[in-house]
């Protein structure tokens, strides 16, 4: 499989007042097209920072980062926003749905940035909600859904524009075991049946087992890579 994500000597430094914090040190990593990678590590190890860089939410201090051959470390803010809209789907620990919008409207959000007409947007959002098993909850607002259901809406929002890459930051961190299993099964299904490339940050070894490969980060450095049982 060809590498979808190519990271070379990637570093990230934050400046907090006079303090210089080096969060990532010269990371080298390839993620293949269609791969499901779990990033694990203790708090402060830099896994969320690495995920943010891969998702184009932040820019590296040094090194190169290419996704599908495009050097996103060289993109400006506007171009990076357009790139995210076209290529990346995001799933967060706390779902981050807009509370005033229905599930359907939340899922439609990324499609507002496309040229699709209203009817097409609604149809695509319905398909995405069907895929995550929530077609009957389309009109419900996030407050009317359980945590697991909200996360599935968030996954539907992440996949509705058919992105190249899904980045998931602790997607089961706020869920009970059963809901977590359902969400992980869903991600696994998206990876296996639909070929989505997924990079997922997690603390939970059981969640990581759903990935094809588990990477361990410690103090900003990749220390270990293993093939998961799944």
């Amino acid at each position, binding site marked *: 499989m060809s590498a979808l994500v190519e990271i070379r000597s990637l570093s990230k430094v934050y400046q907090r007042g006079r303090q210089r914090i080096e969060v990532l040190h010269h990371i080298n990593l390839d993620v293949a097209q269609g791969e499901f990678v779990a990033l694990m590590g203790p708090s402060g190890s830099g896994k969320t920072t690495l995920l943010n860089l891969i998702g184009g*939410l932040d820019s590296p201090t040094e090194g190169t980062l290419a996704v599908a051959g495009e050097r996103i470390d060289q993109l400006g803010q506007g171009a990076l*926003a*357009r790139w995210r809209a076209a290529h990346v789907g995001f799933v967060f620990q706390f779902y*981050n749905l*807009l509370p005033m919008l229905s599930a359907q409207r939340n899922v439609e959000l990324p499609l507002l*940035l496309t040229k699709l007409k*209203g009817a097409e947007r609604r149809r695509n959002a319905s398909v995405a909600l069907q895929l995550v098993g929530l077609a009957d909850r389309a009109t419900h607002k996030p407050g009317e859904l359980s945590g697991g259901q909200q996360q599935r809406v968030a996954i539907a929002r992440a996949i509705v524009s058919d992105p190249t890459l899904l980045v998931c930051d602790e997607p089961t961190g706020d869920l009970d075991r059963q809901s977590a299993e359902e969400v992980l099964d869903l991600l696994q299904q998206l990876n296996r049946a639909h070929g989505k490339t997924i990079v997922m940050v997690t603390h939970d070894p059981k969640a990581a087992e759903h990935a094809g490969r588990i990477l361990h980060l410690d103090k900003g450095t990749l220390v270990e890579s293993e093939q998961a049982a799944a």
Partner: protein
Amino acid sequence: MKYLHLVWAALTRRKVRTGLTLLSVVVAFVLFGLLESVNSVFTTAGQTVGAAHRLITISKMGLFNPMPVSLEAQIRAVRGVGAVSRYSFFGGTYQSPKNVIGTLFAVQRNFFDLYPEFKIAPSALRAFDATQTGAIVGAALARKYHWKVGDQIPIKSMIYPRKGGSYIWTFDLVGIYHARTPLEEQDFLFRWHYFDEARAFGKGTVGLFVEKIAHPRQASRIAAAIDALSVNSGHETKTQSDSAFAVDFLSQYVDLGLIVHAIMGAVFFTLMLLTGNTMAQAVRERTPELAVLKTLGFSNRSVLSLVLAESVLLVILGGALGLLLAAAVVHVLQGQMGAQLPMMPVGGGIWLRGIVVMALIGLAVGALPARRGMRLRIVDALSGR
């Protein structure tokens, strides 16, 4: 338009807060509508089609300083002047000192030729010609005092006693005229010759001349030529357009424009502080949501536009409701008080000015929160920093 539901969702997120802010905007624009309605009376005074063809000459010392009647013949000879009529401000009260009739004039017969916007029956004009003490009044004024043709109306002059020393002048109502608005139907007009012969002092002097001109473009030249007739004399004149005169006439009582603008300035300043604070609070609360939008690919400019649209929509909604209410209030008051109420209907001009003010206030109060939303860093906002 495809983002409208996002803007609306943001506005309705805190219904009580938005409702209270909306209420303050409504109140501010009710006040705006009412004050503009009053102010319009002043700013549009004398702006009729006929007025463009009229000049008014008064003493340079002011309306109540008389000019010699002999000036009329000289004015008539000025090139470009078609017709001249003279009239004098009388000023009087009816029955009680409270019932002041502010626009009470002694006029010549051809006054009505120069004011074609005053619609009057030919029979009334004939009666006016035939009756020494004849008077014609505006329809709104007649309604106010329940006058009808044939009534004898005693008026107490505030300026002129009769030759016997009495200030009471009795007129026979011979006609009622109609005009464009109730406000223009407030005049009480009687014969100038009767006035000139019966008054105890001032015979042979006049308060105003009105000139008809063929071409409004020549107004400045003709006005200058008329004023040149009496330059360096003891009765220098000031000639101006009818509309300018009407504004001057009303402004001698009060500079309403200044008062209106001062009040509205204070109201809108307070409104901006209030609405600005609401918007800042709303955007602060929604920082994670704005960060999510940016994560999904919304550009900085899109986020800026969304927040600005939210504040503009809030002010326009409240402002439109306020102006609608003001229009209804003016309508009801005019129905109840008629021409006694110095107000114009809340029309297109007021709406246009109102919408411009709404948009400007909306943009101003949204500017800082929108800038904050535009500049937020996604990773900081999502991590709660």
